[in-house]
């Protein structure tokens, strides 16, 4: 862990960023929710009392963090903007635009292609939608999760299916023409047919993008705790596989392209911001516990939202840093690039073969025969089957062990 000033020195010394030609993405983190969901393991909190006051100070530290840490990036071109959480819609467009206003004149937003905010279906009313629109956002990602009220209840969500419908209507009314819906499969009690219903319902709104995430237990979320106590029954893996295949089929049939493991979009509406994460483009973040990447350094401040908000100044923030070089960099490229439709270039693979993993091509070929990977033009890509088991495939590729058919 290093303090902000040390981090800044490290960044200045190692940075490979060229302000003239390189672009950067900006992420604004609002880790506040009305209620924390049962499956959530993100750095977020639910607040009731003092929310306004805490939010005010939180925003103050975000801006302070920007000026203290990123002054060397001034006038850099921002290519995408994303505000996530938590629930930025809950923090409100005023809070988000306040941060934006403060940093706007120090960065170049003239080439901004995409600005997304995440919203909970229960609080996208007309004024919020219009507010974000006015603040410059052009894409909204709604955490629908499911169209079954029962499943939503299981997930601990505070919205119901009709809230989603209203939220979509309000967003469209406010002029959002790039809308993404998040769905979750693998919810306890969910069936293939109920998931199919949710998919159909989602498709009926003709969103530009749909994300389908598999429910994941991780230490720290409520589900995990009750799973450990034996109170929660997870879905059979075979069922999960069926759901994944169903999503692949249905979305393809409706003209969506599968551009990342869990993401589908109408051509031209792929989320540019997320793609930059997966293609290892630089991005900076403001807010508690948010991650940034300015090659070769990945770093994040290690604070809980309340602690962050209670700081006098951002110089008190502490960051964990991760210098990504050598084999780590290669591994990161491999698993991130393979997440995307474009995959990884054969040129990169040759480089890896020479430096780290002498049998990567042999293994890739056998995995191709098994139907998990395919060589397409100058790239190696994962198939939809391969995406389903990508972790293991990456380990196979990089461990030098055999994976014959």
């Amino acid at each position, binding site marked *: 862990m290093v303090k902000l000033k040390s981090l800044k020195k490290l960044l200045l010394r190692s940075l490979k960023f060229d302000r003239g030609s390189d672009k950067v993405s900006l992420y604004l983190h609002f880790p506040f929710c009305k209620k924390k969901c049962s499956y959530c393991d993100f750095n977020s909190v639910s607040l009731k009392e003092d929310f306004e006051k805490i939010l005010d100070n939180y925003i103050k530290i975000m801006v302070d963090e920007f000026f203290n840490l990123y002054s060397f990036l001034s006038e850099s071109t921002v290519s995408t903007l994303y505000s996530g959480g938590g629930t930025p819609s809950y923090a409100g467009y005023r809070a988000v635009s306040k941060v934006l206003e403060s940093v706007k004149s120090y960065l170049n937003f003239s080439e901004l292609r995409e600005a997304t905010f995440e919203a909970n279906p229960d609080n996208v009313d007309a004024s919020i939608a219009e507010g974000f629109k006015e603040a410059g956002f052009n894409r909204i990602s709604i955490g629908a999760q499911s169209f079954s009220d029962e499943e939503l209840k299981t997930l601990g969500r505070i919205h119901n299916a009709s809230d989603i419908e209203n939220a979509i209507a309000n967003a469209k009314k406010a002029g959002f023409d790039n809308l993404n819906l998040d769905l979750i499969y693998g919810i306890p009690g969910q069936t293939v047919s109920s998931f199919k219903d949710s998919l159909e319902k989602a498709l009926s709104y003709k969103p530009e993008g749909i994300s389908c995430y598999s429910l994941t237990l991780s230490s720290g979320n409520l589900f995990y705790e009750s799973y450990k106590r034996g109170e929660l029954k997870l879905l059979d893996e075979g069922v999960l596989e069926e759901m*994944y295949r169903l999503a692949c089929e249905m979305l393809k049939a409706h003209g969506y392209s599968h551009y990342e493991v869990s993401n589908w979009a109408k051509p031209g509406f792929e989320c540019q911001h997320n793609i930059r994460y997966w293609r290892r483009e630089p991005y900076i973040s403001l807010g508690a516990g948010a991650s940034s990447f300015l090659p070769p350094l990945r770093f994040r401040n290690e604070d809980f939202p309340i602690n962050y908000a209670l700081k006098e100044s951002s110089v008190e923030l502490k960051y964990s840093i991760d210098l990504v070089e050598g084999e780590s960099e290669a591994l990161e490229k491999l698993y991130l690039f393979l997440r995307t439709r474009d995959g990884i270039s054969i040129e990169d693979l040759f480089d890896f073969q020479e430096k780290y993993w002498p049998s990567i091509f042999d293994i890739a070929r056998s995995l191709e025969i098994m139907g998990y990977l395919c060589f397409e033009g100058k790239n190696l890509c994962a198939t939809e089957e391969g995406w389903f088991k990508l972790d293991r495939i990456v380990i196979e590729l990089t461990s030098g062990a055999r994976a014959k058919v």
Partner: protein
Amino acid sequence: MIQENIRNFSIIAHIDHGKSTLADRLLQITGVVSERDFVEQFLDRMDIERERGITIKAQTVRMPYISRGGKKYILNLIDTPGHVDFTYEVSRSLAACEGALLVVDASQGVEAQTAANALLAMENNLAIIPVINKIDLPGADIERTKEEIEEGLGIDASEAYLISAKTGEGVQELIEAIIEKIPPPSGDTESPLRALIFDSWYDRYRGVCVLIKVVEGSLKRGDKIVLMAGGKEFEVEEEGYFQPDPVIVDRLSAGEVGYFFASIKDPRDARVGDTVTLAKKGARIPLPGYKEPKPVVYTGIFPVDGGEYERLRDSLEKLRLNDPSIYYEPETSKALGFGFRCGFLGLLHLDIFKERLEREFGLGIIATAPSVAFKVVKKDNEEICIKNPSEMPPAVQIDHIKEPYVNAVIISPSEYTGEIMELCQERRGEMKSMTYMSPTRVEFIYHLPLSEIIFDFFEQLKSRTRGYASFDYEVAGYKPSDLVKVDVLIANETIDALSFIIHKDKAYKRAREIVKKLKEIIPRQLFEVPIQAAIGGRVISRENIRALKKDVLAKCYGGDITRKRKLLEKQKEGKKRLKALGKVEVPQEAFIKILKV
């Protein structure tokens, strides 16, 4: 020292009946080891021996003693291993003695090893002095023990010596009895030298140390000698005896027991059982030697880290210097890489050997499940020895297969008769005799296939008789048997290290067990993995390991890439420790578990 005043003797006893304690007491009473230097169980020098309370290598010690009659004697205690896996060493030791103390625990009575070793002593024509030990214990039943010595061993117990090696009670009288009842050696000191090599070991600095009993003639420092089996000549540089530290002397004469060094670099030149004579005016006829013991239990031993193959080979060589009964030859396994096929005299022998490799040489090893050496008689009448299931010829060439049998002695309280008979029957045993040693204790002699006792037999016997039964066995030749080779296939590939040979009636059950176990411990792979057990081409058991399902579709939180990468790096680390079983990879620990099934 004239022969009349020398006594060479051994102590034979079941494990834990107090052999080492008695030896310690003798050393103490004769003043060879002072109270101050006393480390309990002085003769058991190897760590493993001390920990397991057993003796593996023969040791000798010379004790001076002045009898009640005022005469000076030399008592040579030649220690013997207590376990029958080491029958070979026992018989070697006994051949150097004229008498033996047969020690029986007064509370335990005659046990299986007592019986086996007493028979060996009788075969060697030794004077046997029955000794009932631990008479100070509350559970001591002297009368019953005497009855068992009489009935079970056929030895006159009326004059058994009653002692407590722990307190020293009766030990002085016992020493007097050694002088009185064990005959002195009788070889002619004037004849040409004939000395029996009954042990030898390799000393890093001095070459081979040869332990001998001079049977006839005498051996002086500087003598030019010939080891009769190989005919090689050496010059004696140092000779002496152990007390228990070496004491150098100029001459060892007929009847005496001692050691010599003669710059022998290759231990194979000083073979146990060989006869030493002088280069000039030597004897022409060697002493009767020993039959070399044949290994009966085989196992594959592989280094955990393939890079340690050379070191493993060196360690095996070093261990064999001190234990020529160990057999090994290079072996390659598709699953385990380069290693060795090793043969042992029995299971304990194997166990101790593995432990020594790990402890004394710091080697990480994987040992495959032990198997016995089968004999295959082919249709063309050729007989081949199968030390490893992979050596089995194709079924069409086989006329019949023979497997080694043992004569097993089981001694137990009579209330467990039913359990013992049931167990032996399950293990294809044939009862040879059942004798009541006393109204409450019974001795069984069973003819059992060795392969049936190398898996879990002793453990079962112990648990079914609540630990009261004792067990010992001696290999007793080969008999034709209805045996089959079972192959284990993982993802349609035969895993050589898992093949086994088994009686036809048991093949199905064991195949099922192994296949089930494999299913439990092989992690799921990217593809479905069938596990099969097959005899020839016929599958007799099958399970499927379902293919690995999803593992990646969680949302990547706010661009937190680091967490994900660290996770992958950790998994990658884990994968390095995997062993490939054909196409499938399993954790090393899991693999070892399979081998132990």
